[in-house]
């Protein structure tokens, strides 16, 4: 099935690239969504089976693939609305649709791969397709954002490759040359610790560019700022999840060796610094899109803190990353409507959003409540579990500092959001504000509702899948 999916999706991408006809483009995009959902259903029906040697439908992959398929539908709808509203040349439009299909395909395949080199290849393809999307506006700022993204991602991908080389040296001591995750876990006791340490450092640093963690988080911020908002939604949800998959699958290997404690220390430091850095930027940021992007850095920091502390933290990390993807993508989708009203993304020129687009303002308010993890948001549950894992790991001091930082983030985030929602912007001429249909916000409400539902009342299958994806980790 994965073979059919990859061939089908790549040919759809090529056809979209060549297509100059609107109706044909719609048909192809619809076909791609059908293909995406067929793969998702197939992965549930063939749970735990391996396809084409390098792809396994395991619990983590199935979960994240479903999240991706859910987000892909509104992403394509909002891309269409976006391109109708800001007309681009037909050629640019074709490149946009082809790249978005390529991006979604590469991320799906990256989730499913059971071999570290295959994950790496598909991560490389995401860089290529994402860079074409970031450069959509073809202006100087977009070029700057694209250049930074491509360059930093190229370096980080090279780092992951160096890590894989060190990993192969570590594996030579176990007398094996199969770099699949299953084989690595099976041989984890025989891996050479020195090479494994180096491998972990490089692979972790490399994947932080996609995950959005200190040290390589900067590229992602510029990318999400300059990319069209529907693409920003994908970059800050499903692509971050791909970075998480890369780190988490390798972390499972390291966690089964004596290096477990050391790896936790490395992840913990990077995670704490991410929360700290995002706090600093959140306080002074005035660009709305960048504010959302920094909020993503904060959440990834919390997720990795959960992983570093272990225990209930593993479960919370997976739950958090899923809920965050749903919430953050809906906020980014909402941004396209906000931008259509105000034609600006600076806090100073935006305000009193409730007056112009009530449904959209409700999304923003609910999204704010969700993203800052206030009840009834589902993220409240996962964040609470992360704090519990910190408490159980006897990191009280760290917990207090993180809570203080989060309070500052909520303050800064809330200050800006309430300015957008209620306080009128100075000198804003509202005579030709477009009327925005409330139906456009419906997909965002569904995503937010899903995040609340999954957090407060998770279905049994969902819980079982999360439990199975952390099964290989030591207690």
């Amino acid at each position: 099935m994965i073979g059919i999916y990859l061939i089908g999706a790549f040919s759809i991408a090529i056809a979209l690239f060549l297509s100059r006809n609107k109706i044909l483009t719609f048909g192809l995009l619809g076909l791609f969504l059908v293909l995406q959902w067929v793969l998702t259903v197939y992965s549930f029906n063939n749970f735990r089976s391996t396809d084409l040697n390098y792809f396994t439908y395991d619990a983590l992959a199935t979960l994240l693939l479903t999240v991706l398929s859910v987000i892909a539908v509104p992403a394509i709808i909002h891309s269409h609305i976006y391109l109708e509203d800001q007309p681009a040349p037909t050629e640019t439009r074709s490149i946009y649709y082809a790249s978005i299909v390529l991006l979604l395909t590469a991320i799906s395949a990256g989730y499913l791969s059971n071999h570290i080199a295959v994950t790496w290849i598909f991560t490389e393809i995401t860089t290529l397709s994402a860079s074409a999307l970031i450069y959509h506006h073809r202006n100087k700022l977009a070029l700057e954002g694209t250049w930074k993204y491509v360059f930093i991602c190229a370096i980080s991908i090279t780092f992951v490759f160096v890590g894989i080389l060190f990993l192969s040296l570590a594996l030579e001591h176990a007398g094996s040359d199969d770099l699949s995750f299953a084989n690595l876990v099976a041989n984890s006791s025989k891996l050479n610790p020195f090479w494994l340490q180096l491998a972990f450092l490089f692979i972790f640093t490399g994947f932080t560019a996609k995950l959005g963690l200190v040290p390589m988080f900067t590229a992602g911020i510029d990318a999400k700022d300059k990319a069209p908002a529907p693409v920003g939604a994908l970059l800050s949800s499903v692509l971050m999840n791909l970075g998480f998959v890369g780190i988490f699958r390798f972390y499972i290997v390291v966690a089964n060796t004596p290096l477990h404690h050391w790896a936790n220390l490395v992840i913990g430091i990077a995670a704490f610094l991410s929360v700290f850095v995002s706090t600093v930027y959140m306080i002074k940021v005035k660009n709305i899109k960048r504010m959302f992007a920094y909020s993503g850095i904060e959440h990834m920091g919390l997720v990795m803190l959960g992983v570093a502390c272990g225990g209930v933290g593993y479960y919370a990390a997976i739950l958090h990353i899923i809920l965050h993807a749903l919430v953050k993508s809906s906020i980014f989708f909402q941004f396209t409507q906000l931008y259509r009203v105000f034609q600006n993304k600076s806090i100073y020129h935006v305000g009193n959003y409730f007056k112009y687009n009530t449904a959209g303002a409700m999304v923003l308010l609910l999204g704010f409540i969700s993203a800052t993890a206030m009840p009834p948001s589902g993220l409240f549950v996962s964040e609470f579990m992360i704090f519990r894992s910190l408490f159980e790991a006897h990191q009280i001091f760290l917990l207090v500092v993180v809570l203080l930082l989060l309070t500052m983030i909520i303050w800064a985030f809330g200050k800006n959001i309430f300015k957008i929602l209620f306080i009128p912007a100075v000198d804003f001429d509202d005579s030709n504000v477009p009327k925005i249909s409330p139906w456009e916000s419906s997909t965002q409400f569904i995503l937010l509702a899903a995040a609340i539902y999954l957090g407060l009342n998770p279905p049994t299958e969902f819980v079982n899948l999360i439990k199975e994806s952390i099964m290989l980790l030591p207690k």
Partner: protein
Amino acid sequence: MIHVVLIVFLITLFYLSIANRMLTYVKVLALQGVLLFFIVFLQLNEINTLNLILILLETIVFKAIAVPVFLGYLLKRNKITREAEPYLPNFISLLITTTIVVATILLSNSIKDTHLDKMFFVVALSTLFTGLYFIASRRKIITHVMGYLVIENGVFILSLAVGNEMPMLVNLGIMLDIFASVLILGIFLNKIGDVFKDVDVDQLTNLKDY
């Protein structure tokens, strides 16, 4: 013999750290490609012939000819000035490169591994970090690209160290080389040259938080 070639490769790094003109960088990169050709030829004697020919072609055609020629073309086309314009004086550059090499040698001394030729480890890691240092210390965007190419050469050497056991990894490295170089060099440097008149990183500071 292979150690001699590796040491010559290490010396090119020192030369690169004090080089002043852009054309020297291009020439050294071409020389590194040729040296890599010899290293591949001497090192990979256990893999099948077809694969070996592919790898040899990649080093000589891509690394030693295509990329330097293209870089020279870019220099001319975008009218990039001839000076490298580092932030730091050459003497300090040389000191830092030496420190990097000494540090990797010290690190390699702590390895107790009979599988690996330590020379590969030292050369590869010092090339990697020197490349990163070039990126951090040079002002022009094109020198950043050259720093990245130096990093790739370092990674390539490291992949050769395990190449006999796992030729797949060398092939993956080649894929990375071609993919990243084409992406970075081909598409964007052309665009950047068109949009930004004088290609300098100081101009890439317009993305701000406010």
